[in-house]
C-alpha cells in the first residue's frame, strides 16, 4: 500500500456500499480529489492552529496573555493558555471579506499571481510529507528532490511580488529574498544529503523505514540537523532571517502593497512552510513516525490493526514536528534580526562548510559500519544501499 488513495481504496472496498457508488468512489481521480481535500483541510486547520500557538507562545515569552476573547467561553475563564482559540479563524474571516486593494501602478498579472504561487508551492510540499506509515498523499521515489524543488518555487513567487508591486520597498525585499534563499538552499541540500546517503533513497518513507531499522539519523548527522534547521528558518523567511520583510527597514518588504486575502495567502504560506520544514526535519533526522529502540518494529510485529498502527505513527510524527515548530517559535521571539551581509557570510562561510563536514561524517560512518559489522548485516539494515 502506498499513499492516501490506496488507503481510501482499501477502505471503500471494505465498506458495505452499493456497487455503483463503490465504483465511483474508487475511481483514481475521485480518490486523488479526496486526498487533496483532506490535505487542504488539514493545512487550513493546522495553519490556523499554528498562528494561534505562535501568538500564545510569544505572549508567554513576552509576559502578556495573547488573544483571549474569541473562542469557546469555558476556555476563556482565566485560563491563559487556551483563551482565544478561535482568534485566527476570526482573523481569517475578516481578511477573506476584506476588499483586496490593488495599487494603480502594479504589474497586474504578476502582482495577482505572486501570492498564488507562494501559497501553491507551500501546498505542493505536503504531497510527500510522510504523516504516518504508508500515509503520504503520494510517496514519490524522488521525494526529497521534489521537496527542494517545490521549496525553490517560493522564491519565484516572492520575487514576482517584489517586482510586480512596483514599490521600492517591495523590490528591495524581493531582491533580498532571492539572495537569501539561493544561498541558504545550498547548505540545506548538503545537510539533507547526509540522511539520503545513509538511507540510499530519496523517498521519505524509505528513509524513515531505514531509521526504524537502525537509529534516528540525527546520529551521526547532528551537524546536518542543526544546519538544516537554520537554513530552513532562512528558507521560510522566519526571524531572525526575515530580511525580505524586515519590517523596521523595509516596512513589510515584498508584502507591503498586499492587502486582504492576498496578504493572508503570504501569511498562511509562511506558517505552512514552517510546518513543512519541521516535518521534513522530523522525517529525515528524527525518525519520522518511528519510535526508537525497536518499539515500532515490535508494534509492527504484534499484529495490531494497520489503521491503529498508522494512527499511532501519525501521532508520533506530529509530536516530533511540533517540538521543532516550538523551537522555531522560541528562536523567533528571542533574537534580533541579522543584517543582510552577515546573513550571506553566515550562509556561505559557516553553514556551507559545516554541511560539507556533515556529509563527510555520514560517508565515513557508513564505511566504518560496513567494515565493523560486515557486509551481511549492512545489507540487511541499509537494504537499498547495497
Amino acid at each position, binding site marked *: 500500500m502506498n499513499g492516501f488513495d490506496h488507503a481510501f481504496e482499501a477502505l471503500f472496498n471494505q465498506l458495505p456500499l452499493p456497487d455503483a457508488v463503490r465504483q465511483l468512489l474508487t475511481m483514481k481521480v475521485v480518490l486523488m480529489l479526496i486526498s487533496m481535500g483532506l490535505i487542504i483541510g488539514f493545512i487550513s486547520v493546522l495553519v490556523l492552529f499554528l498562528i494561534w500557538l505562535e501568538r500564545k507562545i510569544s505572549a508567554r515569552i513576552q509576559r502578556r496573555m495573547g488573544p483571549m476573547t474569541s473562542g469557546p467561553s469555558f476556555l476563556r475563564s482565566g485560563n491563559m493558555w487556551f483563551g482565544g482559540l478561535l482568534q485566527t479563524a476570526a482573523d481569517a474571516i475578516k481578511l477573506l471579506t476584506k476588499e483586496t486593494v490593488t495599487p494603480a501602478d502594479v504589474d497586474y498579472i504578476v502582482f495577482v499571481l505572486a501570492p498564488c504561487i507562494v501559497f501553491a508551492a507551500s501546498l505542493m510540499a505536503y504531497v510527500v510529507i510522510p504523516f504516518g506509515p504508508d500515509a503520504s498523499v503520494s510517496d514519490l521515489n524522488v521525494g526529497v528532490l521534489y521537496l527542494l524543488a517545490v521549496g525553490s518555487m517560493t522564491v519565484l513567487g516572492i520575487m514576482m511580488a517584489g517586482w510586480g508591486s512596483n514599490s521600492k*520597498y517591495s523590490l*528591495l525585499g524581493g531582491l533580498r529574498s532571492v539572495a537569501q534563499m539561493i544561498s541558504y538552499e545550498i547548505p540545506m541540500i548538503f545537510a539533507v544529503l547526509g540522511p539520503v546517503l545513509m538511507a540510499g533513497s530519496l523517498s521519505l518513507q524509505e528513509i524513515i523505514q531505514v531509521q526504524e531499522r537502525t537509529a534516528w539519523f540525527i546520529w551521526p548527522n547532528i551537524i546536518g540537523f542543526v544546519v538544516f534547521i537554520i537554513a530552513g528558518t532562512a528558507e521560510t523567511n522566519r526571524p531572525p532571517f526575515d530580511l525580505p520583510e524586515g519590517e523596521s527597514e523595509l*516596512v513589510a518588504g515584498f508584502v507591503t502593497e498586499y492587502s486582504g486575502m492576498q496578504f493572508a495567502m503570504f501569511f498562511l504560506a509562511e506558517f505552512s512552510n514552517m510546518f513543512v520544514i519541521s516535518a521534513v526535519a522530523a522525517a529525515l533526522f528524527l525518525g519520522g513516525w518511528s519510535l526508537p529502540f525497536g518499539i515500532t518494529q515490535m508494534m509492527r510485529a504484534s499484529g495490531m490493526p494497520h489503521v491503529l498502527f498508522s494512527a499511532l505513527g501519525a501521532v508520533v510524527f506530529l509530536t516530533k514536528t511540533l517540538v521543532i515548530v516550538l523551537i522555531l517559535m522560541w528562536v523567533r521571539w528571542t*533574537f534580533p534580526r541579522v*543584517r*543582510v551581509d552577515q546573513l550571506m557570510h553566515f550562509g556561505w562561510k559557516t553553514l556551507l562548510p559545516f554541511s560539507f563536514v556533515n556529509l563527510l561524517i555520514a560517508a565515513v560512518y557508513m564505511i566504518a559500519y560496513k567494515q565493523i559489522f560486515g557486509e551481511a548485516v549492512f545489507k540487511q539494515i541499509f537494504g537499498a544501499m547495497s
Partner: protein
Amino acid sequence: MINTEEFVINMGPQHPSTHGVLRLMVKLDAEIVVDVEPVIGYLHRSLEKMAEGRHYGQYIPVTDRLDYVTSMSANYVYVLAVERLADIVPTPRGDVIRVIMVELNRIASHLLWFGTNALELGATTPFLYGFTEREKILDLFESTCGQRLTYNYLRLGGVAYDLPKKVEFKWTDGPKTFEAACEKFLNEFPPVLDMCEELLTESAIFLKRTKGVGVLPRDVALAHGVSGPNIRACGVKYDVRKAVPYSIYPELDFDIPTQEGSDCWARYKVRMDEMRQSVKIVQQCLARLPKGRAKAVLPNRIWIPEGEVYSRIENSRGDMGCYLVSNGSEKAWRCKFRTPSYSNLSVLPVLMRGALVADLIAINASFDLVLPEIDR
C-alpha cells in the same frame, strides 16, 4: 554590462522606524547607503512662538509637547529658566520631588528607547519587557499628577501637587504611600534590568548588529554639539548634572557612565547603566525628602523684570536648554529651546554614509531621537 544606477528612497515621514515624522531621503546603491538627507519640520507647531502669547505659568503645559517621552524634564528646563529670571526659590520639598520625577522619567524614557531600539533590530520581546516596567513608572506619575504622558506637573516654586498619601496598583500588593510604592519599584527594577540586559547585551546577533556599527568619532561628535548618552558613549564624561549643577544634584552621589566604543553598542550600554544611576538618585532623594509645602505661595500671574536667562538641564537625550527674554511684562518676549535631539540628528548623515540599510535603522534607533523636540 548591466547599467546600474542609484535609487532614492524616502524613509518616512510615515515609516515604522523613524519614530514620528522624521523623513530620511536615502540614496541607495542596492543595500548600501550612498547619501542621507534628513528632512524635518513635519511636526512644527510653533511652540516657541506660543510662549510669547501666554503668561509664564500658562506656558508650562505647552512644554510637555516639546518632548512627550520626558515631559517632566521639558517642564523642568522651562520652570528653571523662569525661576532664575524672577528670583523664585522652590520649596525644599518641591525641589526634591522634581528631581525624583525627572529621574523616574529618565528611566521611563530609556526603557521606551530600550524597547524600540531592539525593535528596530528585529527583536520584539525586549519591547514588551521595557514597557512592562515603564508602565509602573507611569502608574506612579498618574497617581501623582493624573497624567501618563504629558504631565504638566512642575510649577513655578515647586510642583503642582504633593506626593499622594495612598496609592494602589496591581504591582504594589495593597495600598501604600507613594514613597513606599516608589521604593518597591526601585528595589524590583534592577533585577529586571539585568534580565533585559541578559536578553540583549551579550547576544551574538545583537553584538554583531551593534558593535562597530555607526562609530561616531569623538571630534565629529563634539563639533556637532552631540550631547547626552550619545557623547558619553564616545568616552566624553560630560553631563550637565555634574558640569553645570542645578537643583540638589551636587549633594547626590551618582556616577556618569561612559563607554569608549562610540558605536551603537556603546550608546546602548551607556543608557542601560544610566538607568541604574537614576535608580540610585531616586533612592537618595526618597531618603532625604524634606517635609513641608510642595509649592511656594505665588500669585498666578507674575510680572518679571526685564532681563534674559539661559537654563540648562540634562534630560534623557542630552543637554537641554531654555533661553528666556523678558521685557517686563507677564509674558515672555522670546523663548528659545536648545533641544538635544536636534544637534544629535545633525550628525546622523555623517554616520550613515556607506552603511547598509539595516545599519541606517540601527544608527537612527541608537540615537534616541524624539521628533517633536526637533521640530518644536
